[in-house]
């Protein structure tokens, strides 16, 4: 029986990139709301 190819680095990279984009957007929301509340 063949084992799956080693593509784990791509899997991790995609999740890190997606996480960074979502987190970055949340930070931008927080930053803009903080600036407006001043």
């Amino acid at each position: 029986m063949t084992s799956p190819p080693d593509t784990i680095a791509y899997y991790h990279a995609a999740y890190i990139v997606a996480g960074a984009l979502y987190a970055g957007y949340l930070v931008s929301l927080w930053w803009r709301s903080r600036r407006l509340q001043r």
Partner: protein
Amino acid sequence: MTSTRPRPVFDWLLAVAILAVVGAIVRIAFFTPVELLQGAAQKIYYIHVPAILSAYVALGIVAVMSIVYLWLHDERADRLAESAGEIALLFTTVTLSTGPIWAKPIWGAWWTWDARLTLTLFLWFVTAAYLVLRGAVDDPLMRGRYSAVLAVLAVLLIPFIHLSVYLFRTLHPMPIVLKPDRPSLPPEMLTTFLISLAAFLFFCIVLIRARYRLALLREEPVVP
């Protein structure tokens, strides 16, 4: 004169949505089998597809609210359309970022100019143009009207993107869940996909709500 305190942009519902996404990722990472032909890279599917479907939902909201604005000239509809447009751009960006990372080990190339990918990139540019246009026009009436027309036209791209894999010769795989036949994913993977889709759609809707509250904050005077 009475004034209400603006609602917070960050609240418990956003925390619940973030927890739902984290829960879905835990399921993907630890409780979903690795696919035999693609290895772990196949798990990118569980964030890539929910991201584009969430973007479609957000763009659908933009289009419906734009039509409502053109019809009734209600500022709330314009504000909601703007909020959903920003979230649509975020989710389309995630789709266009995770797609090439998945494509490289499977197709041997980061990118190919086939119909599905090129149309999705075009959708990203049109969504970005929608937001740039909103920022460039000062008059609220003109801004709402011009951007609403652009939004309605942009949404017409979505059926072409979904059907592009049937209409053109393309490297991109056919839909394996959203198709006329039964889904062709094994039950464990299908369950994970549905959990992830529900979590990301919820996250998308809650982000639109948070962005709408930010728009309110921008327009309303703050009560000390």
